[in-house]
C-alpha cells in the first residue's frame, strides 16, 4: 500500500512541475489567444541565461533580475514583431509562427551561451523524506510549494487588483476592452512579462532537476496534455490538469506498464486527454467555443 502511495504522491508532485510550465501557456493564451509553442524555448533560454550568469560569478538575485529583464524584453519583442502582424490569423498559423519562434530562441540560446550542459544547484539536498511510511522527495515538495505560492499570487492579482481586472477584460473581449479605454499593448506586454517570469521559475526548477541543457525545451510536450485536460485558458485548470496527468501517468506506468512492458508514459497523458475531451470538448475548466452560423 505504501508503494502505491509513494507512486501517487510522486506523481502528484511531478504533475505540479508540469503545471508550472502550463501556467505560462495559459497566461499567454488568455491575453493573446495564441498557443505559444515557443514557451519551452523560453524556459530553456531563461534557465541557460541564469546559469551562465551564475557561472560568470554574478550573485544569484542579480542573475535572476537580469534574466527576468532579458525575458521581458524578448516577450515584448515577440509581441510586437510576431504577434501583432499576425493578428486575426487562424490559430494554426499563429501556432506555426510560435514554432518558428522556438527555432529562433533555441538557436539564439545556443549561440549566446554555447551547447554545454550545466548543472543547477538550488541548494536543496534531495535526500528522501519519510512521512508516515511514504517516501517523498524534498525537492519536489519545494517545487510544489513554489508553484502554490505562484498560483496564489497570480489569482490574487487577477481577482483583486485593477491590473487583474484589465487582464480579465482583455481575455474576455479585446475589442470591448479597447472601447473602455484599456491600453491593449501595455496589457499584452505585462502578460507576456508575467509569462516570462513564470517560465523562468519553471526553468530554474526543471533545470535543477534535469540539468540545464537543450532537452529542457521538451518539457512542453509534457505540458500539452495538461493544458488540453485543464482547458487552455484557466490557471486552475492547469493545476488540476497537471495533478491529474502526473498522478495517472505514474500510476499507469507502474501498474499498467508492467503488463505491456513499460514505456507508456509518453502517450498515456495524451490518450487520457482525448478521453477527457470526448466528455468535455473544451477541457475541464476551459471555455466552450461559441459558434455562430
Amino acid at each position, binding site marked *: 500500500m505504501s508503494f502505491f502511495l509513494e507512486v501517487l504522491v510522486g506523481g502528484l508532485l511531478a504533475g505540479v512541475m508540469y503545471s508550472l510550465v502550463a501556467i505560462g501557456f495559459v497566461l499567454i493564451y488568455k491575453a493573446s489567444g495564441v498557443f505559444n509553442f515557443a514557451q519551452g524555448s523560453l524556459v530553456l533560454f531563461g534557465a541557460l541565461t541564469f546559469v551562465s550568469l551564475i557561472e560568470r560569478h554574478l550573485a544569484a538575485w542579480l542573475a535572476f533580475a537580469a534574466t527576468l529583464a532579458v525575458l521581458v524584453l524578448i516577450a515584448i519583442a515577440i509581441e510586437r514583431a510576431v504577434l501583432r502582424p499576425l493578428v486575426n490569423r487562424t490559430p494554426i498559423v499563429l501556432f506555426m509562427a510560435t514554432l518558428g519562434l522556438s527555432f529562433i530562441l533555441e538557436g539564439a540560446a545556443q549561440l549566446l551561451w554555447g551547447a554545454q550542459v550545466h548543472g*543547477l544547484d538550488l541548494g536543496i539536498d534531495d535526500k528522501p523524506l519519510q512521512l508516515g511510511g511514504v517516501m517523498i522527495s524534498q*525537492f*519536489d515538495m519545494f517545487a510544489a510549494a513554489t508553484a502554490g505560492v505562484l498560483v496564489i499570487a497570480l489569482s490574487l492579482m487577477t481577482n483583486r487588483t485593477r491590473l487583474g481586472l484589465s487582464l480579465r477584460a482583455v481575455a474576455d473581449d479585446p475589442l470591448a476592452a479597447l472601447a473602455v479605454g484599456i491600453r491593449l499593448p501595455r496589457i499584452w506586454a505585462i502578460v507576456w512579462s508575467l509569462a516570462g517570469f513564470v517560465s523562468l521559475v519553471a526553468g530554474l526548477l526543471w533545470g535543477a*532537476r534535469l540539468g540545464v541543457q537543450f532537452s529542457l525545451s521538451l518539457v512542453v510536450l509534457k505540458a500539452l496534455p495538461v493544458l488540453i485536460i485543464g482547458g487552455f485558458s484557466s490557471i486552475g485548470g492547469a493545476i488540476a490538469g497537471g495533478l491529474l496527468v502526473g498522478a495517472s501517468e505514474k500510476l499507469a506506468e507502474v501498474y499498467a*506498464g508492467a503488463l505491456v*512492458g513499460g*514505456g507508456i508514459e509518453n502517450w498515456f497523458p495524451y490518450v487520457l486527454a482525448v478521453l477527457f475531451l470526448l466528455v468535455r470538448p473544451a477541457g475541464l475548466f476551459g471555455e466552450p467555443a461559441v459558434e455562430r452560423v
Partner: protein
Amino acid sequence: MNLSLSRYFRATWPRVTAIAGVSLLLAAGVVATASAAYAGGEEYFPLQSYRVGPYAAGGTGFFGGFIDYMQLINTRDGGVNGVKLTWSECETEYVVEKGVECYERLKAGLNGAPAAATNPLSVGIAYASLDRSTVDKLPLITINHGRTDSTDGAVFPYVFPLQLNPYSEVSAIINYIGTQSGGLQGLKGKKIVVLYHGSPYGRETIPVLDTLAKKYGFELTQIEVPHPGNEQGSQWLNIHRINPDWVILRGWGVMNPVALKSAQKVGFPANHIIGNIWSNSEEDVRPAGDAAKGFISITTHPSGTNYPVLQAIDQYVVKPGKGNLNDPARFGTVYYNLGVVNGILNVEALRVAQAKYGNKPLTGEQVRWGFEHLDLDNARLKQLGAFGLVQPLKLSCADHEGGGAVRFQQWDGQHWKVISDWVQADRALLRPIIEKSANAYAKEKGITPRDCSKDL
C-alpha cells in the same frame, strides 16, 4: 496609370521571391557540384558532425578531439607519410535525414581528395547509411556503438563497430559485477536491474542480457525509460521496490543526469549504479551535482591529459591557438579523448593501408583493408603515445570490433578516477549469437557473406 508603391511592391514581390529562390537553388547547386582544381596528395575525412541540438555537448567534444588529432598529424608529421589530411563538416543535428544528406553530399571527396571513412557517431544515421556505405565502398566507423552484428565483417564488410559493440559492453559489466561479488559464481541469486533508453540503441541488448542472466543465475529486470528520459520517477520507485544489488544504466543524453537525480530521490546509492559507454562522460554527470558522486561507469579510454599523444596535441595544436574546442577546459574529457582515439584508429588504418597500396591518397575500399588489418599492440601504442589510452586492438575480416575490453571509472564530483584494470567481455559466448544474427540479416537481404579465409 494608377500605381501606388505598395501595389508595385506586391506585384514584384512574387517575381522577386521567384528570382531569389531560383538563384539560391542555382547557387546551392553550383556550390554542391563544384570541384576545384585537384589539390593533390590529400586524404579526406567527411565529418557528419553535430554541434547544435540536444547532443551537442557530446558532438562538440568528439569532433573536437578528432579534428585536433588530425591537425596534429598534419602539423607535426606532415600528414600520413606525406599525405595530408583534410576534412569538412556538415551539421546533422543528430537527425537521420540530415545525416543521410550530408553523407551523399560529402562522400565523393573534397577538391579531389578521396573520402577515407565516415564517422557519424549516431546510431540512427549509421543504420541509414549502412546500405549506402556498402554500395559506395566507404567504411562506416561506429566506434563503441552501432549494430552488434556488424562485428561480423563477412556480412558487413564496410561497417566497423570499433573497440566495443553493445553486447561486449554489457558482458563486460556483468563480468565486473562478478568480480565485485567474489567471482562469477557469486552472481547467482543477485538482483540486477537494467534501466535502458527507449530506442534501438537501448533495446539492442535485451536478449543478450537475458542470456547472461540464464547463464549466471542472477535475477534480471529490464526497465525502459521512454525517450528522452526527462521524467523517471516511477521507474526509480519501481527500482526502489525491487531493491536490486546493482543497476546498469544504459542511457543517452538527458536520461543520465535525471537517472542519477531520481536515484537520489529514492535513496538508491550511486556507487551501485554502473553506467555504460554512453553514460560515462562529464556532461552526463555534472548536471546531477552531488547525486552523481560515486557513480561508476565503463570507458574504453580514460579521461585525463597525461598521455604523450594528448600532450603532443596540446603542444602542436592547442597552444598555437588552432584547437577546435571552444572551451579549453574540455581538453582531456571523455568525449574529447574519444575523438582523439577515433582519430588514432582512423589514421592508423590509413597507415596500414598505405603500407600495402602505397603512400598516396587511398580510396574507401583500400582504407577498409587497412581497418581490417589494424593491429595495435602495446609496443605500437607506446610509439603512438597512446599506451593506456587505447586498448590493444586486433581487427580482421571476421572481427570488426577487435577489442571488447573496458575499464571502470568512478566519479568523485570533479573527475573520473579509473578504478579497475581492463575487464574483458565474454567474446567467446557472444560470437555465435552475433554470427547467427548476421547470417539472418544476410539471408533477408540476399547478401552472400564473404569468405574470410581469403585475404581480400
